[in-house]
């Protein structure tokens, strides 16, 4: 520290409070807007939902940057220290992509199983072929 005078650093703290509070209020407003609490029916549009999501993620990352750089004084640390703490978090980018991809494919499997369970089945044997009696034939495979 000692980069700012005492009075200036106190002012900077309260500016930080106003900034964080203001950004949080904007985030809550955007969230309510996207869920249709501000304008009725807004929740029906996927575009609004996704845009609002991206904006909120951006604002949260900004809040995180502000807390780390100003409140935790990362701004005044040596570059090597800052990089040794911040760069490893980039690994999370991979983790997010991989696990969300996994979640998405999990959902696709579940939907497929649900769909298949709802299909009508034919217990009879297929023409000419003798199948075991626990084998069911789906309509699209019937000859």
């Amino acid at each position, binding site marked *: *520290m*000692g980069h700012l005078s*005492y009075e200036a*650093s*106190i002012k900077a*703290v*309260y500016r*930080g*409070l106003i900034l*964080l*509070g203001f950004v*949080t*209020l904007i*985030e*809550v407003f*955007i*969230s*309510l807007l996207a*869920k249709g*609490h501000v304008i009725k029916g807004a*929740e029906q549009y996927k575009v609004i939902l996704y845009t609002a*999501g991206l904006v*909120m*993620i951006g604002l*949260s990352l900004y*809040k*995180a940057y502000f*807390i*780390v750089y100003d*409140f*935790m004084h990362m701004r005044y*640390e*040596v570059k*090597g*220290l800052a990089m*040794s*703490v911040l760069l*490893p*978090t980039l690994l*999370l980018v991979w*983790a*997010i992509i991989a*696990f*969300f991809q*996994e*979640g*998405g494919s*999990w*959902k696709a499997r*579940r*939907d497929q199983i649900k769909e298949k369970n709802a299909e009508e089945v034919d217990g009879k044997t297929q023409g000419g072929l003798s199948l075991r009696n626990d084998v069911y034939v789906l309509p699209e495979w019937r000859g």
Partner: protein
Amino acid sequence: MATAETVLEHEVHEYDSKDAWSGGKEPFKTSYGKLMMWYFLLSDAFTFAGFLIAYGSLRFSSSTWPVPDFVFSTAPFGIHHAPLIFVTIMSFLLIISSVTMVRAVQEGHRENKNGVVFWMLLTVLGGLGFLSCQAWEWTNLMGAEHMSVTTNPFGTHTSDGVYLEDEHGHAYKEGEKPEAFKARGSYLIHKHENEATGKEEWVQRKVKYSDGTLGVQELGPPAFGALFFFITGFHGFHVLSGVVFLLIIAINSGSGIYAARRNGYEMVEKIGLYWHFVDLVWVFVFLVFYLL
């Protein structure tokens, strides 16, 4: 002559290499304690990221998911239908306590003992306020709304349709207009006492979807309850341990042992890093659980 020069060169070289590795140099220009606090926080960030990524992938894997505005819409003093208001107040408590923590660190740099203790105690108050709010939130979710680690009564309709029963699970009377619902509409399944057995039972209303199929209101994805209690609980536990350490360090500051060290109350700076980190994690818990 030549030998003397060689010896000198050798000595200089040896001196250099010894100097770089014999300690005393600080490439990061910070103390051991502060550096290790940063690395602890980095590892803690990975733990929280693991939890939040698990939330994300489970949410992606479910065809329905509770809408946060619907789940978190109650506040103390009988306030209902106030989406996200209570949790916004909780966020503000943490932000304010972060600011008072910065003030405590600043007073520490000026070696102002009373200032340090005053601002640290305000920070403790903020932390306790946050924990009290969370205690109310949990009590409401578990007691009034019957959410648990294994059961989640918050569901979402998958398509349009009408109810075939009223809110108490009784068939509609003659002339009563059946209630309709829309796809992606949220509902909370209540528990009612069964008159015959005296047991608490879920009231899952029978429904008829717009394509003509019949069904019942299903309970929501159970992972929601487990994730909510584990993630907010893990964060709450961080706040609780932060409050305990803040109190210990405030008492130590008051006793004058940090003043004797003459290092600008570095211990206050270290607990300050931890406390800001707790606020930082809340930024993302708030985003993932309440905003998105």
